């Protein structure tokens, strides 16, 4: 009788372990493949460099930029406000740390390669639907924002606004990347501080 009870207990324990095993394994995609695929192929998961430039110039705090390139590349040149998480590190660590705040949109970028696309699918697959990619990466940023020129005779108000945004974002990029690493963070903080002062108003 005792042996029978022990055997039963052992089998039930085994069942419990089997049932719980996948749940205790590493994180897995939560979305259904049939739902995820069309979602990540939509155009609206990509933002243009001009949209990113505007967010930077406005000092919008409802988004974060994640630079997935290597630390060396990031140190050489980066977009103002970007956080560096090299792609291999991004997939290995718990994304909750970076993507946990659902009120903040995350925009990934790399040079122009596919790491940002992998990161987009990875993040959305894990349920972080507020993830986007910057089309063309930093290569497109340099070609569009940094090398912007107006060559026509007349400029419309819309073109002027776009040109002005690019110019201001470009200035911030140049200022930031001409600083030593230790001063880059301080520079960004001071930008936020001066914007607050300019906003003015009564407290």
């Amino acid at each position, binding site marked *: 009788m005792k042996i029978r009870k022990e055997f039963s207990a052992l089998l*039930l324990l085994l069942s419990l372990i089997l049932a719980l095993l996948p749940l205790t*394994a590493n994180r897995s995609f939560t979305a259904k*493949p049939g739902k995820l695929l069309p979602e*990540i192929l939509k155009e609206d998961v990509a933002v243009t460099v001009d949209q990113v430039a505007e967010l930077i110039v406005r000092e919008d705090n409802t988004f974060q930029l994640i630079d997935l390139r290597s630390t060396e590349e990031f140190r050489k040149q980066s977009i103002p406000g970007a956080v560096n998480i090299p792609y291999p590190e991004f997939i290995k660590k718990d994304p909750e740390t970076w993507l946990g705040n659902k009120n903040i949109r995350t925009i990934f970028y790399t040079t122009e390669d596919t790491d940002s*696309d992998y990161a987009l699918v*990875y993040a959305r697959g894990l349920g972080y639907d507020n993830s986007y990619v910057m089309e063309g990466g930093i290569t497109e940023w340099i070609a569009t924002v940094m090398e912007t020129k107006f060559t026509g005779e007349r400029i419309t108000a819309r073109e002027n606004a776009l040109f002005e945004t690019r110019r201001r974002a470009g200035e911030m990029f140049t200022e930031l990347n001409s600083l030593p690493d230790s001063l880059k963070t301080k520079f960004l903080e001071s930008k936020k501080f001066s914007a607050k002062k300019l906003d003015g108003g009564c407290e």
Partner: protein
Amino acid sequence: MKFLRHYWLVLSITLLAVILVMIRTYSHNFRYDAVRWAEPSAAGSNIITEDQIPAMSSDILLITLGNEAPAIELLQDKILKLNPESILEKTNLSLIRKNKGPVILFADDNSVSARVWMVLSEMGIKNIFILQDVHKNVLP
């Protein structure tokens, strides 16, 4: 028989648990451990170029996700043209899973092949690659 009569309840529970675990693990949804399936993308081992194709097995399945196909003579009779959105349809997925050799994805836009690769890889499909840096032919 005596053994089964004594343990029928416990054995049924165990069997049920095993079946449920098998369904969850091998169903057509995503596999457990997302990091493991994404790792080739971090190592870059999922990217191949034209030069590597002759060294691969003869059972290659080339999937073109657009209107262009790589101009590689060796692969001309192994091309399957698909819309990226339709790759998860039952017949297409079955072709991919049953293919004995490597499955190679190709798209005009590398972003599309990268995104599709990640989805398929997380579904547990091994031996799947992205072809980059090749001359292209426009498909009819």
